[in-house]
């Protein structure tokens, strides 16, 4: 059974996916977008984990499509490296552990020598979503009121001051 955090995470991912893609799209459309839009790609790989039908499709396509294989591999790598990062919240690591156990238990990982680390971007996505959920959870009415007063004092028309 999915943990409370995992449920909140996937709800958030679905919203972000929809915002980044500019609407609700099919698996095939999202997969296509993931080839040209890195933000959609980062959300898409996690979104796939929330839907068994989508996950089965992606896992199956990974056997014959290099792009899909790279998506799955980078996602796997991102979850593993999440466990090692010292600055992530404990909740982020717990979620990564859960996702690894549920989706990658008997899967081996291929380490690719890439100049650009896609897995690092996916890890960052996971971490920022969990941060957002936790920030919201730990926020209080008192903090919100204090922040509201603080923000009201800011002159948004005069935000940047050149240094002398």
């Amino acid at each position, binding site marked *: 059974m999915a943990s409370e955090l995992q449920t909140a995470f996937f709800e958030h991912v679905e919203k972000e996916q929809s*915002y980044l893609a500019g609407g609700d799209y099919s698996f095939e459309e999202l997969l296509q977008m993931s080839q040209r839009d890195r933000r959609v790609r980062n959300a898409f790989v996690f979104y796939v984990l929330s839907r068994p039908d989508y996950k089965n499709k992606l896992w199956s396509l990974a056997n014959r499509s290099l792009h899909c294989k790279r998506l799955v591999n980078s996602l796997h790598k991102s979850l593993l490296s999440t466990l090692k990062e010292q*600055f992530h919240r404990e909740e982020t690591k717990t979620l990564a552990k859960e996702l690894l156990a549920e989706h990658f238990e008997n899967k081996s990982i291929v380490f690719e020598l890439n*100049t650009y680390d896609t897995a690092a971007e996916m890890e960052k996505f996971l971490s920022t*979503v969990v941060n957002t959920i936790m920030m919201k959870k730990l926020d209080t009415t008192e*903090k919100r009121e204090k*922040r509201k007063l603080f*923000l009201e004092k800011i002159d948004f028309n005069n*935000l940047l*001051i050149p240094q002398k």
Partner: protein
Amino acid sequence: MIFKNREDIIENLAMLDSELDQFNLSRKIEIIIFGGTAFLFRTNNMRVTSDIDVFIMTEITNEIEAVLHRFNVNSRVSSVLEVPPIEESFKRSELLNVPFNNLIVYIASKEDLIISKLFSSRQAQKDIDDLVNTDLIDTCDMDLLMELYNEYKKDVIFPLSRYNTLEEVLELKEMKKEKKVR
């Protein structure tokens, strides 16, 4: 979290600032914002970012760095940014006019943002796209940009694989404009 505008960024920094109150810091933490967040302050083009890439100018403990990280403030930007040197870009940055208790925030100049994208060691297409698809180059001080670009090129070893050329970006921008006209 997707930051869509300056207000989102400032609210996030205000939350971080309030969290930092409990540490009774002896001095404020100075940061310079680069990356997508700085784009939100420097261009009018719609762009989103999910974290705040910064250079930290003040020495901080791992505990404090973990707090920054928990509020999506990421200091790893220095690993992909070889130039501009931070001391130089600091002088050209502007102060964010927000009275935080524990933070002093600067925003990198347009020219330094462009340089950071051109000389990013990760050499990703997204860095080129950021320059082609926003008005940053159109609204910057072109003389200063050329001066910095020519200066920093000399600092780069194996130049062909270490930076995106400004000429190529300008050409792509021209092509994009021509396409629109047609």
